[in-house]
């Protein structure tokens, strides 16, 4: 299954959009733990794209492509911003940053997906989650 979207989203519209995508993934993934991980990574990536990439500009789109098979889920999200230095993101888990109010999105995505890559100077993210664990549980 391949899903493609290019909505003009505002940050507050992200949770509902995420919910809609997750409902379409149900045939491929029923395990609640896996769905939690996917939801968190998808929501954080979309918020980053809309809020920091597109700077909450309602005229800008986010391009979302989702490929789901029995084995894995591949999510690509591209915004219309300038990108960011994804190799130079401060660790939110260091003692100095533990009380910081922002900077956890990229870290959460990395930890809750199996593979994360950035393209186009950071304006595009590709995230992969294996669904095999889910299939074993059915």
């Amino acid at each position: 299954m391949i899903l493609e979207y290019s909505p003009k989203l505002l940050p507050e519209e992200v949770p509902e959009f995420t919910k809609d995508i997750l409902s379409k993934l149900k045939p491929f993934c029923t395990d609640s733990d896996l769905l939690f991980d996917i939801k968190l990574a998808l929501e954080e990536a979309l918020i980053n794209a809309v809020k920091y990439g597109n700077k909450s500009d309602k005229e800008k789109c986010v391009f979302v492509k989702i490929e789901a098979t029995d084995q894995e889920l591949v999510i690509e999200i591209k915004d219309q911003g300038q990108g960011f230095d994804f190799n130079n993101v401060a660790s939110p888990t260091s003692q100095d940053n533990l009380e910081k109010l922002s900077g956890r999105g990229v870290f959460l995505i990395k930890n809750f997906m199996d593979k994360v890559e950035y393209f186009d100077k950071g304006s595009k993210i590709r995230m992969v989650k294996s669904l095999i664990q889910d299939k074993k549980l059915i």
Partner: protein
Amino acid sequence: MKVSNLKKSDCTICSIEGEINLNTSPDLRKAFEEFSRQNIKKIIIDFEQVPYIDSSGLATLIELFQRMKKIDGKLRICSVPEKVKNVFEVTKLHKLFEIYDDQESALEGF
């Protein structure tokens, strides 16, 4: 999301029901700000009915932690579902917050 508070002697138990995300965090922040207005110095946040938290929810909790620290107050968190607890652990915020298995153990010695 629903927030309900229960007074137990000098402690307030705040039970949250529902997801804590970008859209619900502002309401949670308002509920937490009310604690400051009422000068409440001992708070237990019960997470039993919280199935999901994102980075904005974590930030809202850190704000409360910082406010409590400023007034020399005490904050404890309890009954955190496994997946949500995992988010605290991955982000190392379990080192910042005192997390207890249930309300009873959170109330002990509080």
